[in-house]
């Protein structure tokens, strides 16, 4: 993982948001630097939902906030409708802000407890002096209605009178009221119960349809992100590992980290036995001192010498599936053959085979598209079955 490069970006004309080489560093104390987001590029087409998924500390929230210039990124560009937001400051930046709104994780702490809901949702309109008070009121009512709250009842209540799910609806209404084009949803359902989570996810889908919204949806929950996204970007330690349409990503993950994440998800079905040995060992390395080369290599079952030296470039391994890995799980070589070098760790022969496999990937796009569509049930069972042997060797390597 640790991917750099922009192979996965689409032509600028088609996209609403294009983020290139985004870097966000924080001071880590004692002169050290936390590399929270390290050269990340992604784009979002109009009316599309991009899912950003990864474990805590992978930089997904930081990347999305850097898009809003909260705070401004250390370097890189954020092109929103062709204009680079990083070049704007002060009032010039402020006038851009209504077009991008954000919905935060904890709905209760992101609402002012002393204001009425009508005030909260109407605040953006007052700040931007949109319309007359009557028009504003009508706008607020419309937004509340759109998120499924009865304006007549909700308007004069305060946040504590609502449940968590309803508060999240209020937050969404507040984000909608300025008619933004892009909404960044930062873990909007993580604090909610499953039954409420389903309501909010359905609501976001409806609103996206109704208002032609573009969404960047950040979550650590892979099932949620699959449900809402048109494209999913998997992040690890400040880098993008893999980017693909969700149905493909989940049927045949190309990056070992994606595969490990998928096999870690607890499945609400006792017949599905989670193969614990398919899991990645250990914890996330410190972003103060990220591993050289590929940042995932310290936990990767397929890591070779090359991974420590050379940072993988993002490249297309299948139609619309981009991965930053030297030895991806998807390619024109059969996965079984591809796995073998990793079983015997760090051998030059393994290296060579992996390189050849990856070299051939780009030239044969139609080969993977057939099997992955035809046999999605096969792919998940294949992944855990292949992973155990790898993981055990990875575990040993880590302990040593």
């Amino acid at each position, binding site marked *: 993982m640790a991917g750099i490069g922009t192979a996965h970006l689409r032509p600028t004309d088609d996209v609403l948001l294009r983020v290139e080489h985004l870097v966000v560093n924080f001071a880590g104390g004692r002169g050290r630097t936390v590399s929270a987001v390290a050269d990340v590029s992604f784009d979002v087409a109009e009316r599309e939902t991009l899912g950003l998924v990864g*474990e*805590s500390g992978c930089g997904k929230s930081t990347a999305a906030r850097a898009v809003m210039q909260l705070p401004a990124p250390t370097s890189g560009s954020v092109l929103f409708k062709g204009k680079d937001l990083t070049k704007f400051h002060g009032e010039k930046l402020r006038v851009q802000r209504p077009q991008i709104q954000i919905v935060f994780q904890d709905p209760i702490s992101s609402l002012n407890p002393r204001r009425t809901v009508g005030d909260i949702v109407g605040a953006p309109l007052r700040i931007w002096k949109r319309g007359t008070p009557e028009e504003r009121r009508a706008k607020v009512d419309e937004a509340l209605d759109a998120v499924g709250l009865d304006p007549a009842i909700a308007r004069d209540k305060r946040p504590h009178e609502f*449940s968590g*799910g309803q508060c999240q609806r209020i937050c969404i209404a507040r984000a909608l009221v300025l008619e933004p084009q892009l909404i960044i949803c930062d873990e909007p359902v993580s604090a909610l*119960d*499953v*039954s409420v*989570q*389903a*309501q909010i*996810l*359905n609501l976001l*889908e409806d609103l996206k349809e109704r208002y032609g919204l573009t969404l960047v949806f950040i979550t*650590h*929950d*892979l*099932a*949620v992100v*699959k*449900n*809402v*996204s*048109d494209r999913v970007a998997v992040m690890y330690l400040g880098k993008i590992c893999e980017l693909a*349409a*969700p*149905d493909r990503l*989940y049927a045949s993950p190309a990056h070992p980290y994606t595969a*490990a*994440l*998928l*096999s*870690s*998800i*607890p*499945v*609400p*079905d*006792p*017949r*599905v*036995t*989670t193969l*614990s040995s398919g*899991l*990645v*060992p250990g*914890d*996330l390395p410190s972003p103060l001192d990220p591993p050289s080369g590929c940042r995932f290599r310290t936990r990767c079952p397929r890591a070779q010498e090359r991974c420590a030296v050379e940072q993988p470039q993002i490249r297309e391994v299948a139609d619309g599936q981009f991965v930053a890995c030297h030895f991806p799980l998807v390619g024109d070589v059969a996965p079984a053959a591809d796995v073998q070098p990793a079983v015997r760790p760090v051998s030059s022969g393994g290296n060579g085979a992996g390189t050849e496999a990856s070299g051939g990937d780009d030239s044969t796009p139609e080969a993977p598209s057939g099997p992955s569509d035809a046999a999605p049930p096969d792919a*998940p069972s294949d992944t855990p079955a292949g992973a155990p042997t790898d993981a055990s060797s990875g575990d040993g390597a880590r*302990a040593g």
Partner: protein
Amino acid sequence: MILSRRRVAPVASDYHQPGSRLLDVNDLKTYFRTPRGMVRAVDGVSFSLDRGRTLGLVGESGCGKSVLSRSIMGLLPSTAERTGEIIFGSERLDTLGPEALRDYWGTQMAMVFQDPMTSLNPVMRIGNQITESLLVHTDMDKNQAKETALALLKSVHIPEAERRLKQYPHELSGGMRQRVVIAVALACGPQLLFADEPTTALDVTVQAQILDLLSEQQRERHMAVVLVSHDLGVVAGRTHDIAVMYAGQIVEQAPTEVLFSEVRMPYTEALLRSVPRLENTSHTRLAVIGGRPPDLIDPPTGCRFAARCPYVQPRCLEEQPPLQEADTPGHVFRCWYPVGTEAGKEALERNLAAQLPQAEAAVSGDLAVEAS
């Protein structure tokens, strides 16, 4: 302590015969006094647990699952009033005061809490936190306790255990801290472990590691475990039985596989359907449970789920369904018109004909699931 000190008993196989009863809870009620009235957080819960078995306790927040496990442990605030029988082994725990219960905490039953950041003492070294309970509850001297602590840290797969003993909690990652919490809970060899949302604060890859660790320790020590979670996925693969709680009551309980294949209670069905599934294509419409759980100060007279239930009938609003037996042994549920029966099917059809919103939502969700 005046009471007899218990040793960390080595696992004696004859003592832990499978199938022997460890815990019996009968009609447990835990009410909290509040300015608005009594909150019936746990309202008439009965279940039993055999040695070496795992019970999953699932439900939405506020359903009483955490209060239930704390009630059994006797870890309740002074505003709580608890009635009902708790029989642990052959002794009544419900009649014991906190002093007497101290003899059970740690040595007989222990708890792993949700948030490993706050359940460890931030100004105490890891080693001392583990040896503390060993020194209190057993006859070990300091050196023995330290060696046991080291062995415990190794058994929960903490690398460089020797060095960790001297570290403080903030020096460890979330997953490592939860391993330490588990080591503390296991220190005195409890026979019953409550794991209260042990992985909710952790990342998915770390969650899998911690759940594996818990299963492994359970097998080795032949402990009974109560795994509390809001996530059906977490309990599905790792429990023998599952009890689903709603509004302070157990509404369905069954062996894990039976619960998923022969759902009877509409609430369980709704919960299962509202979870986004990996096997569904993206943008699959999710089934939703409308409304919210009832007020536990003044719960409805009939079925507590009636107001949100797609199968609801007039009888459900008036009479509370008792916990009744299903076809499979060990499967009980509370419902007048259970899912998967003629009565349930007819009830749903009547509601659809009457265009009851929650019935329509349930069916449209159903279609979306089947279409994928």
